[in-house]
């Protein structure tokens, strides 16, 4: 394996130094919580679209999806295609207009208006914990990359990554995060296109790729080039898991219910720009599997004996790029890996500031005060994430760790969000009961998963069944308890959005 040359390392260090400077420069005029958390609501739609996609790619795609494509093949493209595009279109026309009408900062804030403060608090705590836990996973992913590329111990890499991400998010808030994402996207495109082209040339084109995998793949890779896998497969990406768990639950839950994603939409100037940003993101998503999944597949054909599949993408970077360019692309790759962390850090800070601190600790806090609290929480959460990062090692990989976390509570939270938007009859009694029932279902299924599911990692089925339980219980309890008066729901549901 090639090591980074001195010139490459200099580029990486300069790059990492420039990001906190960017954060400081962007943040120097910010004074209010709206500036810090929503970029002053002046972000351009195309920037937000790119930023959403880069946040979604982050560590999960580059390390996790590319790694899973190495083991599983084309089926991983479902994550970006059926697992993103329809949900993003739905988000643009159904959910985003309602968030805009409500004029909220956070999703729990919307749910608080739609149901009551109890629902708002439960969701805020759930999401707050999830975002902080995920920060740890992102830091671990970045450390995995640095370990491969530079041979640094993981704890040093975690501290460096946390410092860079923490500083530019601390100084610049959402606007700095979005600006950083622009640079990260350009680097991602450059690195991925080079890897894809060089990799395909090395393996002998598409035909060579197919022949090589057929020759060395063995029976466990017989479906390597199939987008749709039978329900009987032991892979987590069977068609039934993809359709029910991913396309119907996890994907819409992510694109319309994930604070880190929705917060960017709320940073645009108006509802039309918010819609445009999501549609632009959906268009970009069509290209992502070509840039990430296919290189992962090529990686298997070229390096079939890699001990850890999660390391395939950085490994390919290291072995395919010339000095100089390697440093530039690697630096870009590293900050793309960080991009999920910056978004989650900013959103965790927003959520705890607006839904916990302002709601329960200091109700009269003005925007300047909240801006300062947001910064303090940003620093606190990055410290907490550093401590939590090593827990990721308990899972099979970063992809598995993040999806398992998501599957545990996204089904029930999406159930009450969806019903709250499309059905006036859903009330707070139903929402709380549905949320609790859904969570009990997901944790129970996770506990006994080995005894009832065929798939090795059935996180998509856990999401699906906990969603179903959440919907059923919310509907049943709502039908037998008093509904809120129609005038209290003005502009909060699909049928009353014109009110």
């Amino acid at each position, binding site marked *: 394996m090639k090591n980074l040359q001195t010139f490459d390392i200099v580029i990486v260090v300069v790059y990492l130094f420039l990001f906190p400077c960017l954060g400081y420069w962007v943040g120097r005029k910010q004074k209010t919580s709206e500036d810090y958390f929503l970029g002053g609501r002046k972000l351009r739609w195309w920037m937000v679209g790119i930023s959403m996609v880069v946040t979604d790619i982050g560590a999960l795609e580059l390390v996790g999806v590319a790694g899973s494509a190495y083991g599983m093949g*084309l089926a991983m*493209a479902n994550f970006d*295609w*059926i697992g993103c*595009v*329809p949900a993003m*279109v*739905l988000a*643009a*026309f159904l959910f985003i207009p309602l968030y805009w009408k409500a004029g909220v900062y956070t999703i729990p804030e919307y749910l608080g208006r739609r149901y009551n403060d109890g629902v708002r608090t439960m969701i805020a705590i759930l999401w707050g914990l999830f975002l902080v836990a995920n920060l740890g996973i992102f830091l671990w992913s970045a450390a995995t990359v640095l370990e491969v590329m530079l041979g640094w111990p993981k704890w040093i890499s975690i501290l460096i990554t946390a410092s860079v991400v923490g500083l530019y998010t601390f100084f610049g808030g959402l606007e700095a995060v979005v600006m950083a994402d622009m640079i990260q996207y350009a680097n991602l495109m450059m690195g991925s296109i080079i890897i894809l082209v060089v990799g395909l040339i090395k393996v002998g084109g598409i035909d060579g790729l197919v022949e090589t995998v057929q020759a060395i793949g063995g029976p466990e890779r017989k479906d390597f080039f199939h*987008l*749709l896998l*039978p*329900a*009987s497969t032991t892979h987590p990406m*069977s*068609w*039934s898991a993809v*359709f029910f768990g991913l*396309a119907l639950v996890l994907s819409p839950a992510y694109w319309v219910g994930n604070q880190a994603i929705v917060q960017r939409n709320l940073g645009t100037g108006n509802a*039309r720009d918010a*819609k*445009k940003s999501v*549609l632009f993101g*959906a*268009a970009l998503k*069509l290209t992502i599997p070509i840039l990430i999944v296919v290189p992962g597949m090529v990686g298997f054909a070229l390096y079939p004996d890699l001990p850890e599949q999660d390391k395939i993408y950085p490994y390919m970077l290291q072995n395919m790029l010339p000095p100089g360019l390697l440093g530039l692309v690697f630096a870009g790759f590293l900050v793309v890996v960080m991009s999920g962390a910056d978004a989650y850090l900013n959103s965790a800070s927003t959520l705890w500031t607006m839904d916990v601190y302002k709601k329960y600790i200091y109700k009269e806090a003005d925007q300047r005060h909240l801006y300062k609290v947001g910064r303090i929480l940003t620093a606190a959460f990055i410290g907490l994430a550093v401590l939590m990062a090593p827990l990721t090692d308990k899972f099979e990989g970063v992809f598995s760790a993040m999806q398992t976390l998501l599957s545990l509570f996204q089904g029930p939270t999406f159930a009450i969000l969806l019903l709250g938007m499309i059905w006036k009859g859903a009330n707070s009694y139903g929402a709380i009961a549905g949320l609790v029932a859904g969570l009990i279902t997901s944790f*129970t*299924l996770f*506990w*006994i998963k080995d*005894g*009832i*599911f*065929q798939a090795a990692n059935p996180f998509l089925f856990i999401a699906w069944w906990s969603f179903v339980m959440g919907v059923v219980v919310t509907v049943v309890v709502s039908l037998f308890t008093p509904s809120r008066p129609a005038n209290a729901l003005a502009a909060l549901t699909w049928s009353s959005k014109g009110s």
Partner: protein
Amino acid sequence: MIGILSEVLTSIIAEGGFVAPVREALIGVLKPVATWFYELTAGVPLWAVLLLFVVTLLMLAGWVISLKSEKPDPAQGSGGGRIFSDLRLWAVLILLIQTVIYLVLG
């Protein structure tokens, strides 16, 4: 007292205690449901699965088209009259590309 309680709890957890029977009972109840769902989906041929994916995407495109026009207000600036300023058409175009991808690779 706390020491005894802690010891009892530790031994229950270590030996499975009442936790293991509860787990087994839950598996016993839910396994038939999981098996039923598995057999139901395992019996669906992949051509029908492809059809399901394609129809879902086309239905979503149809719903988008059924919404009211998403053109900008001409009073607010230029572009209101151009057909591609209607966001619905972009959404349908994206969904159609997605459909073609599944038809080719599915």
